[in-house]
């Protein structure tokens, strides 16, 4: 089993890390401080943060509606949440292009091949994470607390802010962490809708892909390692926040 994991996961990852430092720190630094690489990494980071922030709000609302609200067809809606997990990413990218592309069904121009397009695609693929993390916690949340607060005169918004949100924070943060990790590495859904314009819509994974295609593997490795470091760093911060909020809840 350890052998299977080593051949499959451990060695390849080690190879990327070693390869990125092959030419020494100077070569590594040159690779990641290349303006195009830097622009791609910055875009990826900022866009992933925006997407995660949107998900924290919409994901929580969707989870609330699916747990507390009653309406016909709720079960179907609930099962559709997992669609982005099931749908191949290239199909997701293609459909978003059909809808929001310049010749798209909605007739909106200015989404495809722009940063808005990147955000839309990432919102699609990261949709389930926060919803599925918050749903079970919300189901288990003791409703007596809310009723007690109301009987003491708390208004709905106060109940939401002082009781529901603190109890859900660890779950929301956990979902956000996974969504962030997914967003920062996403490739398949972006390659069509983003247009991959350097300095504008080219994200890090697409940049790495381009470097591999042009035989520039050491530079690809350097950017990969940086991407990996950002991903691990942000996941650690999220886990720390999540544990902290658990203690203060």
């Amino acid at each position: 089993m350890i052998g299977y994991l080593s051949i499959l996961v451990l060695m390849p990852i080690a190879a990327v890390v070693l390869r990125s430092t092959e030419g020494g720190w100077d070569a590594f630094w040159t690779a990641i401080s290349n303006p195009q690489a830097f622009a791609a990494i910055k875009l990826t980071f900022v866009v992933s943060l925006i997407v995660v922030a949107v998900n924290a709000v919409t994901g929580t609302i969707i989870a609330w509606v699916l747990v507390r609200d009653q309406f016909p067809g709720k079960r179907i809606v609930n099962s559709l949440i997992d669609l982005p997990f099931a749908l191949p990413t290239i199909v997701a990218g293609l459909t978003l292009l059909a809808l929001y592309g310049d010749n798209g069904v909605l007739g909106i121009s200015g989404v495809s091949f722009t940063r808005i397009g990147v955000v839309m695609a990432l919102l699609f693929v990261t949709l389930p994470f926060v919803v599925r993390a918050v749903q079970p916690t919300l189901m288990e949340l003791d409703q007596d607390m809310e009723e007690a607060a109301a009987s003491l005169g708390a208004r709905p918004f106060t109940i939401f802010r002082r009781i529901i949100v603190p109890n859900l924070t660890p779950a929301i943060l956990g979902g956000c962490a996974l969504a962030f990790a997914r967003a920062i590495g996403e490739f398949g859904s972006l390659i069509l809708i983003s247009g991959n314009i350097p300095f504008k819509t080219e994200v890090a994974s697409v940049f790495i892909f381009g470097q591999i295609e042009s035989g520039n593997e050491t530079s690809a490795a350097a950017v990969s390692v940086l991407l990996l470091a950002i991903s691990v760093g942000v996941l650690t911060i999220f886990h720390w926040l999540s544990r902290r909020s658990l203690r203060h809840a």
Partner: protein
Amino acid sequence: MLDPSLSERNIVHGGRATRWGLRTIALGYLGALLIVPVIIIFFEAFGDGVGNAWETVTSPDGQHAFWLTLEMVAIAIPLNTVFGIACALVLVRQRFRGKAFLNSLIDIPFAISPVVIGLSLIFVYGSVDGWFGPWLLDQGIRVIFTPVGMALATVFVSMPFVVREVVPVLQEIGDDQEQAARTLGANGWQTFWRVTLPAIRWGVTYGVVLATARALGEFGAVAVVSGRVSGETETLPLFVRKQYETFNLSGAYAAALVLALLALATLLAMNLIRRRDSAVVAPTTAALGKEGA
């Protein structure tokens, strides 16, 4: 004095206005982001008539891509199922040093970009300057730019699903029954086949369904290691992109429709399984497993 509108229902489920407001936001968001785009595939696929769509999907390259995709699934899923069950058993039932390390190793495919996965495989198995590539080439095995490398990439990305689905189920059932079987004289294999496996079967099935969905749709990792030669190393997702780039739009949508139908079948399977066994957990919660969520 309590306001009579603060009935139990209104507190926990929100007032009428809140309820309708949130419902509208949630359903509107889902509709715009999720449902409408998927319906669009159907229309676009047949935009140039059924003829072109059918021709693209049934062209030799299209058929080859379809069967190659299934071949990748047929290689990756059995391997990852056997590995996943074994790994979950070790993680739950045994104590050893380095368990936390093993745990995080399993989540790596979730945490890194598929493109980086492809790149890492090139560094290890590349024929020119990979770690083992030249040696393997001497043995007559070429990995990168062949279906062998594509299978490796598929195995890599679909690895964590079965482990992450089976671990919580094993934790929940405990090991009382296994110990009872042992006391009654069953050996290790008998205990596994007659006690453990039946108890975890829905967890395993759910993991298999998720892994299959991922393996069917994998694009990035496979794109990097395949070389993307039509009719040779092109899976269905790569075929979709090729059709799009050669301006055969309705063909691209038709192939995408095939993938989307497979995805819908997966979704249906997921829901049937979850309804049967409440112990199986949603994929996200499974990935959060380490926090005990």
